[in-house]
């Protein structure tokens, strides 16, 4: 039989139903003969009754509760797990971006050599405009001369392919480029390089003329444009500013030593005579 002290220690878990069956029987045995422990057990049960009869809350709508709570929630960066649909949209977007990238990259590689009858030719024109716009002022003239040379290459190819309109367009564009470079050509930063570039233009212009003349159905429009472009080149080549360097004072003075080292300018080269006596431009000048 349990002692009085031990029984008192176990009365609370006994009242809470936490004791095993044999332990309960031993407590029951003591309480039966102990009025004090029986009275204490009644108090414990009354206390439990008080504790468990604390009433639950009356009904409370959750919607206003949530709205009030939501207003207090701190902002937290949301890391949403993409759903399958989101993954699919993401995949489509990546595929489209990859196609566009390939197209742009392909265009970027292909466009510089595109001819006027190529669908990528507009891309080439845009690239050239950007290139010219981004060129520093002291490098603008070489770019202009390169573009002029490219127009002649196009004109030659279009004339060979019997696409006279496109050839004419390229020749007109060539003349416009030369007009745009006229001011810079009077005072080039690198006269020798400019002179070499002009010689190259002359040779290519002659090539356009030959290609057009070699065709049985040579186009008069091309002939006229080639003649006009040749006149323009002649005028530029005979400018003193190209053949005789000008000493510039101040910020625009060029450190380029080449002109000063060669005080006697080379004679202006003349284009080689062609079979059909193609040096008539110099004779006309």
């Amino acid at each position, binding site marked *: 039989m349990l002692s009085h002290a031990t029984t008192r220690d176990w009365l609370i878990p006994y009242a809470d139903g936490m004791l095993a069956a044999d332990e309960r029987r031993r407590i029951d045995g003591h309480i039966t003969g102990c009025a004090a422990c029986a009275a204490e057990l009644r108090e414990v049960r009354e*206390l439990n009754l008080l*504790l*468990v009869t604390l009433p639950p809350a009356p009904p409370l709508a959750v919607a206003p509760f949530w709205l009030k709570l939501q207003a207090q929630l701190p902002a937290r960066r949301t*890391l949403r797990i993409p759903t399958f649909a989101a993954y699919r949209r993401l995949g489509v977007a990546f595929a489209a971006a990859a196609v566009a990238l390939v197209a742009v990259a392909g265009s970027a590689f292909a466009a510089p050599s595109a001819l006027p009858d190529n669908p990528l030719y507009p891309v080439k024109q845009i690239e050239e405009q950007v290139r010219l716009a981004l060129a520093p002022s002291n490098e603008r003239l070489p770019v202009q001369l390169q573009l002029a040379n490219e127009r002649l290459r196009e004109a030659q190819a279009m004339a060979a392919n019997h696409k006279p309109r496109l050839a004419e367009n390229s020749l007109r564009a060539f003349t416009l480029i030369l007009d745009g470079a006229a001011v810079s050509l009077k005072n080039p930063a690198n006269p020798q390089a400019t002179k070499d570039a002009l010689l190259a233009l002359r040779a290519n212009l002659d090539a356009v003329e030959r290609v057009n003349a070699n065709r049985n159905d040579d186009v008069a429009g091309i002939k006229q444009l080639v003649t006009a472009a040749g006149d323009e080149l002649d005028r530029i080549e005979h400018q003193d500013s190209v053949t005789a360097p000008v000493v510039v004072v101040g910020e625009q003075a060029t450190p380029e030593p080449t002109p000063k080292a060669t005080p006697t300018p080379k004679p202006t080269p003349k284009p080689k005579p062609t079979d059909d006596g193609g040096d008539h431009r110099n004779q006309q000048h």
Partner: protein
Amino acid sequence: MARAEDAPSIEGDAEERRLIDRSAAGDQEAFRQLVIRHHRLVINVAFRALGELSLAEDVAQEVFLKVYKALPGYRHEKPFKHWLHRVAANAVTDALRRRRPVVSLDDMEQPPASRESDPVDVATRHDLQRAVRQAIASLPSHYRDTIALQAFGELSYDEIAKTLDIPLGTVMSRLNGAKRLLRERLGDLVRSEEANTA
């Protein structure tokens, strides 16, 4: 002992786990679902402890706010409900301590339809409940936290042990000590209640 009546059985619930993870990542819609699942449990704990609906609602808001902020650090090793009970118990015992000196019967929420139609009985019952709450609030913290889970959260010994991460024997010891102190402090009320019910 009566069980928590409103919260669904969620231990091992994969859906609840998903809601917890999404809430921890900042998904407020997922957290709203968690609140819908458990707000009744928290409100009841707070109301049993405080006896005033508006105050219980404030404490419940505080509980869920703490939960939301702490969710990124929550690990699924312990059932969410146990963790929620612990946060709620801490919040209500803090609230009990804060409001203990200013309790008045006028502040008490009048119960809805009661079985006791006699106003005298109702007032007596309210006095008893208020006294119990005050007595619990006056207990040492380790007793108070444990008895709050039993009296306000209606948890079993085993659930209290899991919620507080303490051995079952420690729960028994603490509840034993808490109830002895409560009997001492509520002595006359308990005995008069005993006499009334005898």
